């Protein structure tokens, strides 16, 4: 029999139900894998006891004929989700030691579905970053290495880089992620896994440490499209605690999965052919076009004319919202307090925030504070929100011509740690293909589609209409069936 840790979510769930193995065996196997993979630095806190308790409950439930959607399946939880009694830091020093008294809605739903938690996954600090180099708990390392024999540690992508690294290394079968401008899709592409960001409002933001509230959306990361559908079904759903939560039933995405795209029109946005994109990514995109045609779809060229303004608009809106959201870290209510001798309240705020936030977080708070400040608000923030309207309209116009969009996920394969960290702008450009759909709140997913010349994974992205996660998943499945992506990193950790 294959190793239990080689199995994905569906296989674990089904094998557990069929009695092929116990939930406890599964939890033990993954706990051991997590404990043996410290070199990846994918976890901030490991929670083997949580996984074991859920597994023992699942085994009892099974003996009573009472299995739930995720009974027998342990997962990783991004450290942005508040977990009752388990430290939650958003990978920041300012929240080090913060132990929530409550559970986020998304994690509570997963535990109610029978899942267990293997640990809290490392990430970019406050989800700000594309390489996992901004964590206060050290870089996450990708399990992948270039095939040229070089051992340069590679970025697992970000901000959900602990999630992507852990799944690719098969030390968790699936994990939660959050996506503000690409933080599920780009790390999924970098590590050869699948990841879906649903429509804004599908997953509750309650109990998720806030970065940019009009963009933040939780989603699922796993080995394949089916596993993403299963996980997302358990995470999504209306929550009265979140004012932007959508009061809609959660479709049965897994049951309706179909890789048959007959009757679907797939748009290819011409503005996504950016200068300097590696030829391999262009070729993979062409291959993807051929695959969706083979699955029965009609392919049409579409135009999203404001695409080039999406990133600059994002880097006004997201920092502006972040500067407001992160005002709560004051050294009074929770987290770090730095009180220099003789300091007053204002000095305490400033000292606490100087000591508690990392450089990228400070940079974004500063930009946000500036663009929201008196005299600049209209020129920056209002203008960016107007451009955001135009970007959303571009998508609306495209939906007149097609049902889904197909693009590359990221403009490059994974880069080496340190390669881009000195230049914030170069790092921001990683999200060029993922940010526009985030600004419009649309569902989008990345699926692994091939390897580049250095043996590193590349992803393709499918973007859908609001609420059409099913269309996105189905097109993802059609790509997955044709890509036949089976490559995996060789264990060195």
């Amino acid at each position, binding site marked *: 029999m294959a190793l239990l840790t080689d199995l994905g979510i569906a296989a674990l769930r089904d094998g557990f139900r069929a009695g092929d193995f116990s939930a406890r065996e599964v939890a033990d196997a993954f706990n051991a894998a997590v404990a043996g993979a410290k070199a990846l630095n994918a976890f901030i806190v490991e929670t083997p006891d949580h996984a074991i308790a859920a597994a023992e409950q699942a085994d009892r439930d099974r003996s009573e004929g009472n299995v739930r959607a995720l009974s027998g399946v342990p997962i990783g939880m991004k450290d942005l989700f508040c977990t009752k009694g388990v430290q939650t830091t958003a990978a920041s020093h300012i929240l080090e030691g*913060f*132990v929530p*008294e*409550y559970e986020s809605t998304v994690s509570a739903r997963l535990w109610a579905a029978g899942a267990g938690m293997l640990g809290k996954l490392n990430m970019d600090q406050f989800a700000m970053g594309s390489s996992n180099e901004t964590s206060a708990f050290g870089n996450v390392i990708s399990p992948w290495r270039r095939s040229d024999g070089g051992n340069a540690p590679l970025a697992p992508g970000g901000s959900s880089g602990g999630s992507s690294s852990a799944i690719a290394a098969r030390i968790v079968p699936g994990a939660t992620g959050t996506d503000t401008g690409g933080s599920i899709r780009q790390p999924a592409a970098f590590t050869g896994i699948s990841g879906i960001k649903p*429509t*804004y*409002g599908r997953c509750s933001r309650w109990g998720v440490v806030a970065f940019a509230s009009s*963009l933040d959306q939780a989603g699922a990361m796993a080995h394949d499209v089916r596993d993403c559908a299963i996980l997302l079904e358990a995470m999504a759903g209306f929550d*009265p605690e979140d*004012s*932007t939560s*959508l*009061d809609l039933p959660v479709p049965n995405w897994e049951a309706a999965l179909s890789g048959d795209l007959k009757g679907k029109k797939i748009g290819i946005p011409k503005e996504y052919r950016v200068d300097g994109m590696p030829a391999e990514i262009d070729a993979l995109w062409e291959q993807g076009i051929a695959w969706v045609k083979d699955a029965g779809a009609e392919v049409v060229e579409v135009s999203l004319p*404001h695409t080039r*303004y999406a990133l*600059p*608009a994002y*880097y*006004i809106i997201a920092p502006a919202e972040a*500067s407001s959201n992160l005002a709560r870290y*004051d050294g*009074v*209510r*929770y*987290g*770090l*307090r730095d009180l220099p001798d003789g*300091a007053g*309240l*204002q*000095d*305490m*705020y*400033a000292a606490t*925030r*100087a000591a508690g936030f990392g450089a990228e977080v*400070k*940079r974004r*708070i*500063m*930009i946000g*504070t*500036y663009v929201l*400040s008196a005299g*600049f608000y209209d*020129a*920056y923030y209002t*203008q*960016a*929100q*107007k*451009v*955001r*309207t*135009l970007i*959303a309209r571009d998508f609306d116009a495209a939906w007149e011509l097609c049902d889904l969009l197909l693009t590359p996920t990221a403009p490059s394969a994974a880069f080496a740690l340190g390669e881009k960290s000195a230049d*914030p*702008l170069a790092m921001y450009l990683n999200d060029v293909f993922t940010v526009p759909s985030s600004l*419009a*709140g649309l569902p989008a997913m990345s699926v692994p589609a091939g390897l580049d010349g250095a043996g590193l994974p590349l992803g393709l992205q499918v973007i859908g209409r609001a609420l059409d996660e099913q269309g996105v998943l189905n097109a993802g499945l059609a790509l997955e069936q044709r890509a036949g992506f089976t490559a995996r990193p060789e264990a060195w950790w």
Partner: protein
Amino acid sequence: MSVDSATVRKIASLARIATSDAEIEAMVPELNNILGWIEQLGEVDTSAVQPMTAVIANTLRLRDDAVTDGNIRDKVLSNAPAPEHGFFGVPKVIE
């Protein structure tokens, strides 16, 4: 628009982040680089466009005006760095 060190010092003060002179000097070119890049948004004609207020059309719900939570003082204070007598503690603010 570009920022000078006085402006960066002012932003840091508004953001309540203590910064040394050396940090301010390092931030000036960094922020100018980013601000220069986002400046391109000014090219877009938005004279007839409303700023986005909701990314997905949604109606803000109202609920009954009733107490739904409370009596959890100790939980609220459990992560406070310096709670005192059942309150959040802060340094003296009135001389």
